[in-house]
């Protein structure tokens, strides 16, 4: 187990800067999720920690030791890939034990460790199969097992669930959370799925264009986004935005743009005027899409049995003042003045 510290980490491919000066401290045993839109550099940052990409600048410490110039295999990290990257010609058992085998561990020891890990991941019965005979979820378990068996100090996950269907994704999410709890090992997890980020992370790192936008617990990021980008990225459906001038009476000092989360908005007899466009009944709740007078589309959430007007009906939106987020011209969050 080990802490991970990035200081001024940089990555350039030719003239293109992919990671520009990332500073981050990850505590021993922490579960940190890198999240951001595609091309934000989150996978590159993970691969730099893994040793698959070298640093163009800055440094990496794992367990207090400088690692940026150390071979991947000596960093004490193990990685789980999006494609699982299993050895297609080897059995599950050999996939898991292969790294130990090449390190010269005795056969009996390898077999014991392999079985131990397989039991932990509930793939004990699959040890003689080849990867092509496994389902996506099973392959993912083998990939995790292969990482686990080496007892790494730091676990790296690169979008491990994005090739799974929704049901399996939920199941494997719980599985990874359980592993983290049982092993207490440092985990760094890359995803573009904010639900995965919110549910798994001790802390979330939101990245955009190679820079950190905000670091915080899921609750902090949801309640106090540092800027418009984080506000729009965390939360589903995403936050509604409008120019402050278009929402009379709800402005905040210094804010040129306002944001309101869908779950804060109520249908009311007075307030911001809008036209109801479409209702999506999800069974457990309803999503209501409304068109503001300035043409913007907003989303609202309503209880499954709420009485919702017909499409085309004029409606009014209201929300508590405390639910208004303000952003300045640069997109930074404006503090609500204690009034």
């Amino acid at each position, binding site marked *: 187990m080990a802490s991970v510290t990035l200081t001024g980490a940089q990555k350039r491919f030719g003239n293109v800067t992919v990671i520009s000066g990332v500073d981050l401290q990850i505590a021993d045993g922490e579960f940190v999720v890198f999240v951001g839109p595609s091309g934000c550099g989150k996978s590159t940052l993970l691969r730099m920690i893994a040793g698959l990409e070298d640093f163009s600048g800055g440094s990496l410490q794992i367990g207090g030791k400088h690692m940026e110039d150390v071979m991947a*295999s000596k960093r004490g990290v193990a990685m789980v890939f999006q494609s699982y990257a299993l050895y297609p010609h080897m059995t599950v058992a050999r996939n898991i034990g292969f790294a130990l085998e*090449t390190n010269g561990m005795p056969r009996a020891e390898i077999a014991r460790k392999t079985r131990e890990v397989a039991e932990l991941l509930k793939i004990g019965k699959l040890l003689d199969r080849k990867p092509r005979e496994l389902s996506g979820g099973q392959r993912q378990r083998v990939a995790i097992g292969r990482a686990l068996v080496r007892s790494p100090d730091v676990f790296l996950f690169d979008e491990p669930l994005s090739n799974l269907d929704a049901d399996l994704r939920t199941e494997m999410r719980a599985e990874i959370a359980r592993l983290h709890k049982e092993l207490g090992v440092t985990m760094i997890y890359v995803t573009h799925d904010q639900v995965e980020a919110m549910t798994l992370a001790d802390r979330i790192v939101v990245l955009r264009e190679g820079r950190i936008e905000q670091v915080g617990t899921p609750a902090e990021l949801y309640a106090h986004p540092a800027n418009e980008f984080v506000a729009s990225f965390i939360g589903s459906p995403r936050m509604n935005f409008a120019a402050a001038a278009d929402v009379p009476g709800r402005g905040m000092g210094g804010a040129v743009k306002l944001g309101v989360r869908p779950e804060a908005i109520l249908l009311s007899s007075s307030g911001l005027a809008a036209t109801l466009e479409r209702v999506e009944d999800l069974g457990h709740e309803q999503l209501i899409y409304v068109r503001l007078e300035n043409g913007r589309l907003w989303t609202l959430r309503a209880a499954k049995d709420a009485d919702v007007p017909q499409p085309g009906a004029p409606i009014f939106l209201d929300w508590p003042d405390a639910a208004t987020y303000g952003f300045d011209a640069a997109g930074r969050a404006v503090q609500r003045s204690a009034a």
Partner: protein
Amino acid sequence: MSRVLARRERRAAWLFLAPAIVVLLLVAAWPLSKTFYLSLTDANFGNPDQYGFVGLRNYADVLDDRLWWKSLSNTLFFTVASVGIETVLGIAIALLLNQAIPGRGMLRASILIPWAIPVVVSAKIWEWMLHDQFGVINAVLIHLGVIERGLAWMAEPGLALWVIVFVDVWITTPFMVLLILAGLQMISKEVLEAAYVDGVPAWRRFISITLPLLRPSIGVAVLFRTLDALRMFDLSYVLGGNSQKTMTVSIYARNQLVSFQQMGLGSAASTWVFFLVALAAILLIGLLKLHKPAEG
């Protein structure tokens, strides 16, 4: 699917296959059966309409001929040596070209040039380069002090066959490289990265991961090349003519048929060549497990 639809699909399938079947019957089955038929006779090129059946005597006569066995050993030596060297070189060059090196596209295109030249032309080029008096190879070797006098490459008993192997390697290694490179590019980069992060040493990644995953590509390449090499004619014929040092089984069969006008004996020799190639194909497909699906 309903029975009517199934029947209609089956009929369509036969319709689509028909042209290929007709062509195969015309260009493969017919000549082959004709050759086999002639191999059982004492037909002569001079008077091909008058012949009598001699049973399997031609086959026995071929096996009784010392020259046949010499050609066979030449052919097998050529096949093993050239395909072996081409495979090793092919893998090495393909690995090199698979790296992100500058000018990779150019290299990939230019490496194909030897393969694109007709074999007879290549053979003639090399014949001149290897000429004992005027050849550039001898000139360079003499200049470097490796040899004192020009070597008559194709006349040296120990060298002639190696020269043919060498020129074949020059001509067909690009083909190997191309097939193996295609196989290399099918291997997931992440699989090798996973092994790298897990501390598997480079040589072990090559032996235990890259090579097994390349097996189908290498297998197909080796199969193609072996079958080609076993019936090789042009290269040896241009460089060595009828020299016994470099005679292959194809040249042997051609000589019986054309030079000695013995249609029956020549056809029997051709049929032996056919059996040889067929046997090699069956053995290789089994040995390289080419009938099994590729992994991954």
